[in-house]
């Protein structure tokens, strides 16, 4: 049995009468970039919101595992017992749909960015990266008590946090602007900063909601390079929503296609690119005309 990082099973999300996601199942492999694509309104961001705990799904299971893969064996038992997470044999297993949003980040180590950039514009670039390290810093400050009395343990932890932030700033080339407000940065830099900020939480899974939106082609290419470095150099897998097909096709290892809340294709970028259903969904063709389209694209 393969050992994916994230397994989404029979996920359904209804808002009143509207079915945003209908019985969606897919998995994201460890150390890979998985892309989630689909036309506008297909339910991609809703999937993200379910994974990161912002929404409670109506039905379905979202399981994430890191460490020893044997922990997957506990999945059914954990589900039956109504628990949220389990640690066994050095592996951790989480049922994300049962966890509140901040715990998904803290414990299951899933970080995310937003379609419309959500930085803290009035705080400096460095402060943005330090807020991302809130959880370990909070612990080091003895939940504020030790920090308030100036214990050196906190000063040390803060220096380490600044060092880490600095490494990320060096990578995205924003070290010189560390003391400027984040709201002052150009758009592309804000996108990269948001990704760096998410990476400062030490995630095993990084969920990026349209990271290339609004970037010009050269910025998109740079972003693609940056994402590949993250995948290759860190133990972080990436789940990606993207409309820019050049980015998707270039960096993804695996593509899941969604349309009207239903999965219509799942596979390698090449396979998906040539899938007639995908083409139909993107071009908006009736099902019976798919054959014509297929013929046109040379299948």
């Amino acid at each position, binding site marked *: 049995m393969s050992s994916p990082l994230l397994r989404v099973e029979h996920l359904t999300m209804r808002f009143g009468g509207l079915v945003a996601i209908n019985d969606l199942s897919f998995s994201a492999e460890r150390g890979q970039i998985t892309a989630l694509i689909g036309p506008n309104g297909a339910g991609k961001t809703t999937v993200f919101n379910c994974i*990161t705990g*912002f929404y409670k799904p109506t039905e379905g299971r979202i399981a994430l595992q890191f460490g020893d893969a044997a922990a997957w064996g506990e999945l059914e038992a954990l589900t039956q017992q109504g628990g949220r997470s389990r640690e066994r044999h050095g592996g951790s297993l989480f049922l994300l749909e049962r966890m509140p*949003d*901040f*715990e998904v*980040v*803290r414990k299951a180590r899933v*970080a*995310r*960015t*937003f379609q419309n950039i*959500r*930085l*803290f*514009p*009035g*705080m*400096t670039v*460095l*402060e943005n990266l*330090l*807020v*991302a*390290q*809130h*959880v370990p*810093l*909070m612990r080091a*400050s003895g939940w*504020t008590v030790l*920090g*308030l009395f*100036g214990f050196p343990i*906190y000063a040390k932890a*803060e220096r380490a946090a*600044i060092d880490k932030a*600095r490494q990320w*700033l060096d990578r995205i080339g924003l*070290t010189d602007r*560390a*003391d*400027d*407000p*984040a*709201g*002052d940065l150009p758009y592309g830099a804000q996108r990269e900063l948001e990704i760096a*900020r*998410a990476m400062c*939480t030490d995630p095993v899974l990084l969920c990026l909601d349209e990271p290339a939106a609004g970037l010009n082609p050269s910025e998109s290419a740079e972003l693609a390079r940056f994402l590949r470095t993250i995948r290759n150099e860190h133990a972080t897998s990436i789940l990606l929503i993207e409309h820019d097909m050049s980015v998707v096709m270039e960096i993804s290892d695996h593509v899941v296609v969604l349309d009207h809340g239903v999965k219509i294709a799942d596979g390698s970028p090449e396979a998906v690119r040539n899938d007639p259903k995908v083409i139909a969904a993107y071009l908006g063709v009736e099902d019976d005309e798919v054959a014509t389209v297929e013929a046109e694209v040379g299948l």
Partner: protein
Amino acid sequence: MASEATQEATQDASRPDFARALRAAGFSGGIAFLLFLPLIAFLAAQNMRNELVLETRWPLFAVFVASAFFGRLIWELSPRERLKQQFAETLQSPIRLGTAAATLTIAMGALRIVARAGFGIESDVALALSYLFGTGAVVTAIGAAVAWVKSRYPATTESGRRRQSQIGVALRMVALGFLLAYPLVMFWFLGTQGSIKWIDNFGIQILIYVMLGWGLNIVVGLAGLLDLGYVAFYAVGAYSFALLAKNGLPFIAFASEYPFLTVDFYQLGPWAFWVLLPIAGVLASFWGILLGFPVLRLRGDYLAIVTLAFGEIIRLVLINWVDLTNGYAGISGVPRPTFFGIPFIEGEGGFAAYFGIPFNSIHRTIFLYYVILMLALLTAAMTIRLRRLPIGRAWEALREDEIACRALGINTVTTKLTAFAIGAMFGGFAGSFFAARQGFISPESFTFMESAVIVAIVVLGGMGSQIGVAIAAILMIGGTELMRELDVLKHIFGRDFDPTQYRMLLFGLGMVLIMIWKPRGLISTRSPSVFLKERKAVSGAHVREGHG
């Protein structure tokens, strides 16, 4: 119309357009006419036989309309662009500002001499003007010093920046020294009768509001949670202190025969005040959490309404729970604070006898001044510390973007609750100090007006800025107290005129003016909590004001 006029002015600043100015003035005068005709010109009054009669006040009405007309006319005709430019140049020039400060000081001195020599209205006018010129002299002198430092040590060079920060530290030391020496200097120069007003009404009163402003600043300025019921925590602190001090502290004594035993205030010994103060603070912070829970999901206007209601609920409970709080009559005879156990009384065992100095009632006032100064400095120091800790950064991040906070693993529930709790705790400290200082408290002291004043101080000062809040408190509370001093207004508006009655009007006016000129408060920039190379102030344009 106004924008057209401004455009015109920029096109040809040297030659004002008289016809246009006249039209604009006529427009303003017309509006004033329509507005003040029912408000000013007619007065429903009672005559000798208790009948309601309509009186007219045409001269006063004419004054209002004429001042609107001519005021607008002068405004339109004045070379505004050039004046603005000159003003900006003056602000840069230490020499011009210094000259202005010197002139104002001399004018103030001359007016003081006139005030002392003359009598009646001339003397009062001179005194009022001397206060005005004195304030002007202080402001321009500070401006001159700032301009001099900026031109001498420009911030563009490394050494200039270092020198500027050194001067900043030195200034803080000087300010602290001034605050410490203030009551003693006042007492030295003005004697008991003359100085009590300056230490009590100005010193202590302003410091209470500075402290309340700083406490609320944590909730409103840092965490971005608009709390319009802050006075509730002030009240909880005051009543906790008063009730515990009067009735004793319930203690659970495990070893004793009686499981519940109350320790009297005086049995607590020298530290009674210092034991009850933190208890009152903790109780207030419990109420902060209690308020925090139901409003966790509320944002902006809704949050403001609920907190406002919370403040009123606390006040109504204090009025109606007569058994506990004695209702409207309030609680009198709250034990007065002692000097670590030594009471401020005349004769044997008193403070004066203990230190071998002649008894003087001002000793207690001076002691109280130092207590509230210490409490206010504690608030400031804690806030500065907290801002550099993860919790403080989480508060500010919460103000900036709550959703992003959640995506970074910050528990927004506990973060909001700690902001409410710590803000409320400082309100509770201030409240218990208030109870100890007054010796008497009643629900009258905790009306919505107090909340409004504290919020106004925070907003005027610049949300999040400690120094801005302090300046705003000095201006608003000190300004109100100063108005009592101005007898000249009595000459204009009649014997019965009490200027403090109009303080809310002036607050409102101040708010409107600040919102026009400095919409983000006196100090609108934000100082980052941490920096890599240099600490650069963040422009207020980027800082969010919080919406939840």
